[in-house]
């Protein structure tokens, strides 16, 4: 596969500029680059989703014209988009056959697909229940569906756009096993990611993109993470977080027997007990969907439940009139939510409006009893954007015009700035490029050092390890174990995340482990 001189502009934004790249069959080719560098755009052009302004696509040595995705599919290209293109309320099977049906009736297509799916599942260890609705699947499984879609269409070239951003480490490992397998079968794989570890681990060659241009293509074996990071960001990047030991103060947050039920009446938190002290970061590890989101939601005030939460010894209302996000914020709880698009930001709002979102009732932002002090907020935002290195630092730009990393910085700025007693952080660096990750991590540590208590939820074990002082592992709505990060072993944590105690865990000094029978 080869791209020659691809250019693409969205209005005045030049997303791709004269890009050429060549990928050999039977290899995995990585593409890295900062947020907004144009990676997704380039791949979407290859897949016929966008039309290039200029340039040629060559497949298997033939100049191929790809005006739409249909052509791309016929040319043997399959793509797993950064944001999945699945129909949420369709079953897996329906999603698989969509656009690849045999004949006008569904029944034969469905039964054929069911058989084929079974074969693929066995061949590639890609199990999914074909009759499950997409909306009921975890993101990991949704991604399998996307991969299956491509394989069902007999793709020889598979493009994966930031596939691991939403996966747990275990899921990611599984994915890489599959990719390895596919490579051995002679398929070509293009992998976009922000994670240098993954690039180093699995790719054969890697290309670096910067501001719409291809800055380098190198053999993975001949490079290092540091070099790639530098190529990407244009300066030296610190890949490890600098952190002094924590100096915990008094207890800020106490959580006692916290229980939350979801809309269907299923208990998602089954009696959580925790405490966090001033000046320490408690990381919550666990496979996504084991109650971490619910924990953040109830602490952040937008889920209801029973039990006790105390901030600096004061009881917090869990069900009544004062159990909403604004009351929580007044009590000094700030919250960087897991999903910045649907929770943390209003994408249509300007940056300055997002900068006070949730704190808009704060007297500091009111001009008088009736109206808000918009000019003041804009000025304040401009200054905060400067401090948090949000690019471009234009307060009137709508949030949707910022790249993922910069959006996250806006949220972080808003929540950190207030010097909260307790900061809740969910997946702070999901989909964010290396440069931004470095920055965000630094800020979180800084806040800790100023004496805030921080609850960090992340599916990235690396991130948990790098930032946390203590770690709690959640499984099935319970805390399986909690203890200092220094003594946590990889295997021990893995066992806890899977809901098991056992030998491996016992070796972890200073850890409190829940009684195993509770895990059922």
């Amino acid at each position, binding site marked *: 596969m080869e791209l020659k001189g691809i250019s693409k502009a*969205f*209005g005045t934004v030049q997303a791709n500029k004269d890009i050429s790249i060549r990928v050999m069959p039977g290899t995995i080719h990585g593409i890295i680059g900062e947020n907004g560098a144009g990676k997704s755009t380039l791949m979407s052009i290859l*897949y*016929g*989703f*966008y039309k290039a302004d200029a340039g040629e696509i060559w497949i298997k040595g033939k100049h191929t014209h790809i005006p*739409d*995705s*249909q*052509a*791309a*599919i016929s040319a043997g290209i399959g*793509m797993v*988009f950064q944001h999945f*293109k*699945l*129909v*949420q*309320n*369709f079953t897996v099977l*329906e*999603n698989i*056959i*969509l*656009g*690849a*049906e045999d*004949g*006008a*009736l*569904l*029944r034969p*297509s469905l039964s054929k697909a069911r058989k084929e799916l079974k074969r693929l599942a066995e061949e590639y260890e890609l199990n999914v229940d074909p009759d499950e609705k997409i909306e009921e699947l975890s993101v990991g499984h949704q991604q399998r569906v996307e991969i299956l*879609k491509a394989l069902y269409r007999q793709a020889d070239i598979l493009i994966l756009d930031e596939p691991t951003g939403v996966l747990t480490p275990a899921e990611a490992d599984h994915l890489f096993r599959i990719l390895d397998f596919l490579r051995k079968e002679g398929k070509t794989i293009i992998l976009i990611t922000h994670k240098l570890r993954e690039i180093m681990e699995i790719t054969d060659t890697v290309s670096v993109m910067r501001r719409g241009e291809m800055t380098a293509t190198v053999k993975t074996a001949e490079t290092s993470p540091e070099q790639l990071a530098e190529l990407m960001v244009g300066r030296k990047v610190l890949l490890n977080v600098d952190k002094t030991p924590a100096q915990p103060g008094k207890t800020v947050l106490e959580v006692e027997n916290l229980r939350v039920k979801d809309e269907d009446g299923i208990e998602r938190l089954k009696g959580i007990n925790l405490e966090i002290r001033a000046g320490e970061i408690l990381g919550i590890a666990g496979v996504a969907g084991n109650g971490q989101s619910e924990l953040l939601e109830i602490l952040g005030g937008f889920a209801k439940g029973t039990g006790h939460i105390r901030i600096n010894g004061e009881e917090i209302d869990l069900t009544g009139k004062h159990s909403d996000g604004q009351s929580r914020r007044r009590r000094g709880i700030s919250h960087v939510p897991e999903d910045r698009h649907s929770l943390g930001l209003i994408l249509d709002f300007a940056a300055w409006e997002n900068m006070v979102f949730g704190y808009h009732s704060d007297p500091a932002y009111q001009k008088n009893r009736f109206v808000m002090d918009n000019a003041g907020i804009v000025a304040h935002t401009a200054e905060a954007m400067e401090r948090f290195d949000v690019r471009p630092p234009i307060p009137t730009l709508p949030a949707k015009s910022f790249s993922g990393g910069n959006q996250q910085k806006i949220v972080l700025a808003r929540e950190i700035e207030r010097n909260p007693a307790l900061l809740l952080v969910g997946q702070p660096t999901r989909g964010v490029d290396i440069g931004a990750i470095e920055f965000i991590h630094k800020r979180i540590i800084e806040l800790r050092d100023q004496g805030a208590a921080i609850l960090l939820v992340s599916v990235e074990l690396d991130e948990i390890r790098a930032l946390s002082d203590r770690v709690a592992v959640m499984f099935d709505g319970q805390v399986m174990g909690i203890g200092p990060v220094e003594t946590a072993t990889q295997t021990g944590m893995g066992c806890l995340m899977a809901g098991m105690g056992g030998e491996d865990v016992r070796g972890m000094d200073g850890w409190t482990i829940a009684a195993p029978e509770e895990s059922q």
Partner: protein
Amino acid sequence: MDFGTIIEILDSAVRLGTPLLLACLAGLFSERAGIFDIGLEGKMLMAAFFSGAVAAVTGNAWLGLLAGVGGSMSLAFVHGLASITFRGNQLISGVAVNFLASGFTVLIAQSWFHQGGRTPQLSGNGRFDPITLPGAEAVQDVPFLGPIYSNLISGHSILVYVAFAMVPITWWVLFRTRFGLRLRAVGENPESVDTAGISVIRMRYTAVAITGVLAGLGGVYLATGLAAGFVKEMTAGRGYIALAALIFAKWRPVPALGATMLFGLLEAISNRYPNIDLGVVTLPIQFMQAVPYILTVIILAGFIGKAIPPRAGGQPYVKER
């Protein structure tokens, strides 16, 4: 209330519910494909006019039907152009379509027939007369089932049977065919359809065209089945009621049948019982006239719960901003 009365009320409900049903199914195709349509009223009106006009001139109801459907489809095309090609606001376009039909029908009717925006009365083959199903007379006297068959089921215009047949057909098309799968997908997530190599634009235009046909049939039934000619504004808000029924039915064909027939039934009841004497007070006529709408609100609030529209509904499909 005896059995005969119940049959009569149900019979009336079927007639009153049929135009709503056709319009509701029309809206279903469009909205399932992600195009909101508050212009059902206008499409029906346009079809009512053209069917009435052409049937009056030719004396042939079938030619009227073709013309009516054509009129409705031309408005559907305008709506499609606005909401698919030009990515305009679908609500604005729907409002415009309603205004357009409302003014245009009377304007042409006046310039063609000089009867104050009416078409001449239709008679004979210019109308879709009730048809008697085979054996209807024979089974008339069979207790219970006899009247149901001969009075309720038999004796409607062909368009009623078409409308009822459209319910299972719509269901089958939507849930059992490739076309239906793609149609639903395009209303839920057009990107998934696009990346699967299917043209979003073509799917949506097809859906909008089907909407034109079905809404057209609803209008045709009004002018050539139920009434005998076109009268200005004769849809009298039925397009909006059909829209309400569509939401009521949560965009599903079989519940759409239920919802529209419920509206028909409530209207038939309020026609049949203009006043209800409760002994102490006689409920005023205005109350009985409002009963269908009041009951709708109560049923909606009490039993239906939240209706979630197709996810991509109302938004133009824009790939590149």
